[in-house]
């Protein structure tokens, strides 16, 4: 194999599947060693820049000369099919795809809902939700139990109900439709669930416009009325963004965190011996799995020089958070799962102005789930060998489809 130089086309075609469930694709390491930024081919056609080191990844994601607008020419859409792209182009843009002042105007009104202090007030409610589903697991008359359906999916779904102010009587509907949206079922089933939820959320917002409650949507309605006109469609999109960005991600991280800890018993023992270690264990699991690897793509809006290469306006850039999070220059022994690493500078939630809005909610959910699950079911173990678990090795958001556990 010839050694490529920065700027030359590397022999990698994206996306690549994860091979080992506990490690990035082997090609990532090879490319990272060659250069901080390489050029790669996309399966969907065309080429893009591939940013694989931690330092350059942070630099690109914090640089306003890169755009998040997927509708722009040159944006590397390697994870989307033509139908999804069409759908994307026909819908009003979300904060995820906005830049600069427009992005700030969309994100600022919502960040007060996700402050560390406000989320702390949600803690007892999330604890109740987690306990409720673990009660059900313990009461089940059959084992093994599929942790994905029993815990990973329902917990973040109900937390989003809490956030949006979905009334208790609708929780079952909400939970079943959100689970359906991410199930390995037919495209029609998923689309039907999506459409039903959309109608539901639309109606929910209409109800809150006349009968406000103590929730995010009601406060957004009040804020918008105060500042001028109510944007009903915008609120439906916001609610959907929170749901799609916060449900499957957190669910997958719950499942993978459990797999990660159960398959590293000495690490699990450290956590169960002292719950004070859980927050840092969560950071380490987020780094180790970096489930949202492909989502931080950008397109350059100006010609520039970065990481030793010249990037031109209109060229696509894919920042691999997974590669950056395994960069040995930023994390010593980066291939080891080490719950005592004490490092928070991973990029699992991205970096720059789009860094995850729900990150502190996700952290809290993960902390409560791991603490409670291993405290209440200390004998928890996998009911299938790791090699047999159906990992989502080719998905945009990494995870596991099913996770049989027993005790």
């Amino acid at each position, binding site marked *: 194999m010839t050694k490529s130089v920065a700027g030359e086309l590397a022999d990698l075609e994206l996306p690549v599947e994860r091979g080992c469930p506990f490690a990035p694709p082997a090609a990532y390491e090879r490319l990272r060693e060659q250069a901080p930024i390489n050029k790669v081919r996309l399966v969907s056609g065309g080429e893009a820049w591939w940013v694989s080191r931690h330092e350059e990844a942070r630099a690109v994601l914090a640089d306003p000369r890169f755009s998040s607008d997927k509708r722009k020419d040159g944006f590397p859409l390697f994870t989307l099919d033509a139908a999804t792209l069409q759908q994307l182009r026909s819908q009003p843009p979300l904060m995820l795809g906005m830049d600069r002042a427009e992005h700030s105007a969309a994100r600022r009104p919502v960040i007060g809902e996700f*402050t*560390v202090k406000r989320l702390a007030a949600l803690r007892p409610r999330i604890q109740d939700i987690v306990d409720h589903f673990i009660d059900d697991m313990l009461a089940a008359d059959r084992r093994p139990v599929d942790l994905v359906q029993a815990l990973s999916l329902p917990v973040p779904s109900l937390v989003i109900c809490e956030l949006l102010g979905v009334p208790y009587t609708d929780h079952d509907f909400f939970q079943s439709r959100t689970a359906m949206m991410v199930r390995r079922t037919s495209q029609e089933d998923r689309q039907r669930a999506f459409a039903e939820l959309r109608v539901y959320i639309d109606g929910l917002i209409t109800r809150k416009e006349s009968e406000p409650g103590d929730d995010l949507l009601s406060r957004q309605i009040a804020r918008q009325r105060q500042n001028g006109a109510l944007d009903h469609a915008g609120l439906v999109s916001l609610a959907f963004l929170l749901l799609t960005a916060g449900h499957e991600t957190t669910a997958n991280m719950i499942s993978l965190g459990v797999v990660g800890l159960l398959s590293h018993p000495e690490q699990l023992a450290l956590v169960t011996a002292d719950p004070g270690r859980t927050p840092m264990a969560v950071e380490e699991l987020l780094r180790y799995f970096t489930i949202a690897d492909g989502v931080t793509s950008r397109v350059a809006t100006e010609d520039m020089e970065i990481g030793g290469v010249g990037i031109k306006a209109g060229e696509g850039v894919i920042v691999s958070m997974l590669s950056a999070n395994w960069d040995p220059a930023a994390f010593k022994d980066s291939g080891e799962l080490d719950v005592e690493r004490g490092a928070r500078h991973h990029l699992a939630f991205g*970096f720059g102005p789009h*860094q995850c*809005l729900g990150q502190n909610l996700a952290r809290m959910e993960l902390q409560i789930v791991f603490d409670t699950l291993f405290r209440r079911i200390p004998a928890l173990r996998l009911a299938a060998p790791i090699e047999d678990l159906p990992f989502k090795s080719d998905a945009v958001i990494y995870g596991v489809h099913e996770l049989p556990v027993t005790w």
Partner: protein
Amino acid sequence: MMRIKADTGVCVGSGQCVLTQPAIFDQDDDGIVTLLTDRPDDETAAQARAAVALCPTRALSIVQE
């Protein structure tokens, strides 16, 4: 002496600073960073520096006076 500066115009409310050094950083009701004090002492300085480095939008900086 070390002084912390916060540019509230570019803060995106990630809360990284508050998680890292709650003795120095806080968020107002709208989620934007506020400083409880801009002068870290010996005890709080290291984590204040870590928070500055973690801020995703480089809203935080350190000035030496």
